[in-house]
């Protein structure tokens, strides 16, 4: 690589605006200085983490309280409430603590594939085998 080429890359060649946003050179040219590769925004500050943890603790408390209402409210409602709270907790940890909110979308897509594929696949397995095993 010639000195001129190195200089152009380091200082900006002036043609970055012509590159598509998905282009590697474009992304590296526009990376924020204090971020690691893969991050598009800075991580939350510690107080935001504490707030998220408090919310998680409260939801866990409500979950346990709801589980003790068996017999007082319909089981179907308990199932819906518990699963909804489970999903909220899952999303809070994944998006805030695992930084899916602030990292490049490719990580989110990868994780969503696994997190959605697993329940879908095993729901089909359960629906199929439950009947087979019962008979």
């Amino acid at each position, binding site marked *: *690589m010639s000195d001129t080429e190195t200089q152009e*890359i*380091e200082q*900006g060649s002036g043609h970055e605006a012509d590159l598509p946003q998905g282009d*590697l*050179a474009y992304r*590296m*040219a526009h*990376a924020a*200085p*204090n*971020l*690691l*590769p*893969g991050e598009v925004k800075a*991580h939350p*500050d*510690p107080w935001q*983490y504490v707030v*998220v*943890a408090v919310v*998680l*603790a409260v939801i*866990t408390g409500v*979950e*346990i309280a*709801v*589980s003790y209402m*068996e017999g007082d409210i319909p*089981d179907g409602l*308990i*199932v819906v409430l*518990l*699963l909804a*709270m*489970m999903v909220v*907790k*899952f999303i809070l*940890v*994944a998006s805030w*603590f*695992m930084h899916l909110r602030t*990292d*490049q979308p*490719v*990580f989110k897509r*990868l*994780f969503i*594939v*696994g*997190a959605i*594929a*697993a*329940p879908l*696949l*095993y729901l089909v397995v*359960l629906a199929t*085998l*439950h009947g087979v*095993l019962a008979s």
Partner: protein
Amino acid sequence: MATVEQTPTGPGAGELVPARHDDPGTAANSTHTGVANAKLAMWLFLSSDCLFFGAFIATYLLYRDRPGQTGPTPQDVYNIPFTSVTSFILLMSSLTMVLALAAVQRGDYRRFRIWILATALFGATFIGGQIFEFTEFTRKGLNVDTNLFGSSFFILTGIHGTHVLIGIVWLVALWGLSMQSRISQSDSERVEIAGLYWHFVDVVWIVIFTVIYLLPK
């Protein structure tokens, strides 16, 4: 402005390889795609681990109430208040983990060591609780070979416990490296990758706790 290096010779010569913004050349932060290789690999692993745990959760749901089983049932052995406390401890370990990451990212190594050690201790407390729970179940007559419920329960929670144990070893190793001043601000991505694993163990327990322990039988 980020620099971009060009590989001089050999395979891939002339290919643009972005350098890390503050410490070029560290393995954890190298990239050929614009995202850190190690982080990408960890997310791929976590995505596949979702399917791994999903298989054991589905097996448990399928087998826990098979008719004709002898021995204790879930209602006979579960101690919800006790498991709630250990679940809460594991949940809070995720907070200490992100606080450890935030500390190392701003170069506060003393707080990093405190938070990373707290995370490992919370994890160890969770494992202690799980060992106690297993001992209690065995005392009540439920072993891994007692019935299908016992087999699927012990295997699912045992595999999760093994994940936690691996996480604890990882965290203690990071703490040890930091004690030897071998973890610096520029290594924060190594801590972040360990954190991703730890939080994943936590989200899996969020699902296990609700589906296995709390849902009406």
